[in-house]
């Protein structure tokens, strides 16, 4: 895996507040190698290690995208939901914005059934089939459609299981992480001081509370994916 330059500078990360951890009482002792100091009752992560992990994650994403792999970004915190959606659309990846339904990957055949239903409802809506039904049925179908749109809207282009999954907060998306582990899908996870770094394949110690820090890291990863994709388009 060739190492490339990803424009990661520590000053930018300090500005965004990537180095802040959670409170001292809530830490996970397995994060000890990545914590550099304790200030005012909050752990401070070691930014050199974060930068190193981030650049390696970007290298991995670049390589995978240049081979044409599919990605999935999972982020369900209310603060981060919007930026996750925009980042994924910019990078042309699948994403999960709202609640991660249990069994989305491990119970993929059932998720596929729901996606079929979503597709049928969309085609009916486009062709105006909903207006021909009585009002009550039309209202029910519209409600179903909006529900499917919120939960499955980001994965409606997913035809098979993704090859790499990016998870924004490990505590919040524990079920998603567990599913990826049982299926053997490599994961890149944003780890805070109260998370377990051994679960994910590449764990980036960072702050998962501040929107600025999530956006910064997502930005770098998205840039890596875009570059990989463009190199895939140039020579498949």
């Amino acid at each position, binding site marked *: 895996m060739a190492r490339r330059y990803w424009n990661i500078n520590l000053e930018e990360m300090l500005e965004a507040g990537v180095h802040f951890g959670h409170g001292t009482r809530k830490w996970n002792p397995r994060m000890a190698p990545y914590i550099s100091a304790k200030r005012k009752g909050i752990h401070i992560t070691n930014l050199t290690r974060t*930068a190193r992990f981030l650049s390696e994650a970007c290298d991995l994403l670049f390589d995978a995208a240049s081979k044409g792999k599919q990605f999935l970004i999972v982020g369900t915190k209310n603060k981060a939901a919007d930026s996750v959606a925009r980042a994924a659309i910019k990078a042309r990846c699948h994403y999960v914005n709202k609640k991660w339904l249990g069994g989305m990957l491990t119970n993929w055949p059932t998720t596929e059934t729901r996606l079929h239903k979503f597709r049928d409802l969309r085609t009916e809506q486009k062709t105006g089939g909903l207006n021909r039904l009585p009002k009550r049925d039309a209202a029910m179908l519209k409600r179903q459609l909006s529900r499917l749109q919120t939960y499955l809207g980001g994965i409606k282009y997913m035809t098979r299981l993704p090859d790499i999954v990016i998870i924004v907060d490990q505590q919040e998306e524990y079920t998603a992480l567990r599913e990826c582990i049982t299926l053997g899908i490599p994961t890149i996870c944003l780890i805070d001081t109260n998370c377990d770094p051994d679960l994910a394949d590449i764990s980036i110690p960072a702050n998962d509370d501040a929107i600025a820090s999530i956006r910064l890291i997502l930005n770098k990863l998205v840039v890596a994916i875009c570059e990989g994709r463009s190199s895939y388009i140039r020579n498949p």
Partner: protein
Amino acid sequence: MAATAAAAAASPLSSFTIHSPIPSLSFFFPKPSKPFSLRRSFRSLSLAPKSKASNIDTSFFDELDPEEDVVFDPPTPPEGFIPPSSFDDGPEETEDEIAAAYEELYGPAYSGVSVLGNDVRVMDSKVKRTSAFGKIKKEKVKDGFDERVVQVRRVTKVVKGGKQLHFRAIVVVGDKQGRVGVGVGKAKEVITAVQKSATNARRNIISIPMTKYLTFPHRSEGDYGAATVMLRPAAPGTGVIAGGAVRIVLEMAGVENALGKQLGSKNALNNARATVVAVQKMKQFREVAQERGIPMEELWK
């Protein structure tokens, strides 16, 4: 220094580095002093039961050493490097553009609309035909595995209205070439239960180290729950001498000569699982070949 640094880091593997190997052995095989190589072997071992480990490329972690002082030295930026804009700035894309871009990459999939003119119903071949008339004909998955039912039992759950009956089937799946799996499945009908347990069995398959004479390389014991099983290799011509569940597991694995005894409980499922545990404890040919430094062909003589 490395040992104390390892002890300071709250890594669960730090104990491996503190207890150094026996001095006489370390004279012949110099053990690496850095802790990271042990971490790598532990990591590859811990990855094995999770998924199909043989095709996971763990070489990414060969150079990673969590205890060393990480110096962040990025490669120099190329000349004329303009930092790319964040995903928020830049021209707002209309929905059509986004849909077109996604469709180029993935095809229309489940979006219901097709901007580039592809067929919208492209994913329809995956829809299973619903039971329009009678039973759905499920095709038997042909992947070379034989199934044998070990036990089918009727189990009951007592609810307010009466007794709810289910069937629990235990099935052993194996090709006769060293791969077996044990599975359980419950359903309201026997056949469905057997099918469920067969799918479950195919999900946990292990491979048995077999010698040239279709027997084990050495004795082993395994337990699961209250069931203990002892397995012993035998000379060719002996056949499989074992009772009930153990015999079925060994036969489906392709082992021709072995002795097995159920020492603890006689529960079929637990004994089947205990044989699987016993077999997993046996030394694999690959590890022995690596340790002794001789090719695997020598071991099969």
